[in-house]
């Protein structure tokens, strides 16, 4: 799990940084324009924001999918109740009495 999270963070950072670095290098190679290119600026911003939105979507939905998969009833890891699952359930009876 630790490795997965670490890899995910590294991939996210790479996705954010690589285009920025590439863009900065390209800007150094070409002569600066006298005026800002609005078209390029606005569309670049649009694609950066789209990438960010899809990344947030992937992180949130990925977490939810993992949550549902990990804590499903049929998962062998869930046979023994966790320490958070000793809840008062009148229908379940008292485990101390052996019901």
């Amino acid at each position: 799990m630790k490795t997965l999270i670490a890899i995910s963070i590294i991939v996210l950072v790479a996705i954010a940084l690589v285009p920025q670095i590439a863009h900065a290098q390209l800007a150094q190679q070409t002569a600066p324009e006298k005026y800002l290119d609005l078209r390029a600026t606005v569309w670049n911003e649009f694609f950066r924001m789209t990438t960010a939105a899809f990344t947030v979507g992937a992180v949130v939905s990925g977490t939810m999918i993992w949550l549902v998969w990990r804590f499903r009833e049929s998962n062998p890891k869930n046979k023994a109740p966790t320490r958070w699952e000793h809840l008062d359930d009148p229908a379940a009876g008292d485990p101390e009495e052996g019901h």
Partner: protein
Amino acid sequence: MGHDTAEWVFVAVVIAILVYVGADSWYTEKLVEDVPADATVIKVTGQQWYWSFEHPNGTKEISTLHLKVNHAYKFEIYSRDVMHSFNIPDWVVFEDAVPGHVNHAWFAPNQVGTYPIQCREYCGLLHYNMRGTLVVEPDSKT
């Protein structure tokens, strides 16, 4: 690693991305709104159902706007009657024309050509035909 760690990493990643979104948008908005000091002011007036343009030297044009390539232009956008919206899609110029209010937009065309201008706010029966043409011409001085 306990549950807490994974949850905090999740929260941190999402917050980091959202902070990046906010900071980057703010910076880009500042860039885009910064009108060059040497921009030529063009008065744009919308009325049912055509656009008229006035250059600084008093020259007026109806529906067709002639500009020079590699110059910056600042539009002062007026409306004589109802809400219109001045849009040059190819140059991402898009600003409402509001009666009694002056709006601004700017751009600096870097390609010669002919581009459509259109009204993007429903303004009555002939809204669909409230179109114009932007002609970006070579600069004879360069």
